[in-house]
């Protein structure tokens, strides 16, 4: 174990130990999905930032609602 801990981190070869931040890492995922979807879908890209923000927020709200529903289901069920 000591070897792997003391060994210098090698980008792309060794993982980054960010287990504690997995939930925060959902945000870039949501933004990337919104950007790609809207870039493909919109005929004109001038309103892209607004549309991406709106879709990202919609996805996040539904994430939270789904999480709340599942929490209620497991806690009360």
């Amino acid at each position, binding site marked *: 174990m*000591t070897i792997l801990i003391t060994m210098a981190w090698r980008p792309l070869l060794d993982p980054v130990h*960010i287990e504690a931040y*997995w939930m925060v890492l959902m945000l870039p995922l949501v933004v990337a999905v919104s950007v790609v979807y809207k*870039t*493909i879908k919109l005929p004109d890209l001038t309103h892209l930032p607004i549309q991406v923000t709106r879709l990202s927020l919609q996805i996040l709200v539904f994430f939270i609602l789904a999480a709340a529903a599942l929490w209620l289901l497991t806690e009360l069920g």
Partner: protein
Amino acid sequence: MNASLDTNSTTSRWHIIAALAAWLLPGLGHILMGQRRRGYILGSSILGLWLAGLVMGGISCIEMYSHIEIRTQQQRSTDRFRAWFLGQMLLAPSLAVAWYHTQLRNRVPANLSTQRQKRNYFAMVDYSRVPLPDDTPPYFEPSYGRVNEQAVLYTALAGMLNLLAIIDVLYRDPKTELCQAGTHVGSKMAEIPA
């Protein structure tokens, strides 16, 4: 430019070369179709997501088979195909990474000569973090748990988003393109020239 990439044509609908280019490098298909801005945005977002996953989980997050046993020649048949790889392979660079990962996984450090040392080394690379007694560092460190899940999710989702971009350039309906170009009046589309 190739006729198949001509966006103004009302007859050519299938753009095989552009789709292939989009698979090789995200956004390249749109750039070849003349939609540079769209291509750059798609390329940077998809490649950014894929690279973020690779940096997070390391090279071990992209692999075709999961190695569930300590490998010997007899046990190689126990390797199972990973379904996530189907998503990851929708982006061509993933194939190169998977190939390189397999090369590193099967490479044995030169100072390990006995069969026992080699077996221990593979055991460490495959699924445990137990170091070798003679302090041989591995060629890469495998990722586990949440980090691996997140990295696989990032890279596979990048591949699936790239599939959307590939489909977008693969088939273009001239009617839709004219509508997108703003040639429709109200809800009625402009008449397509024969």
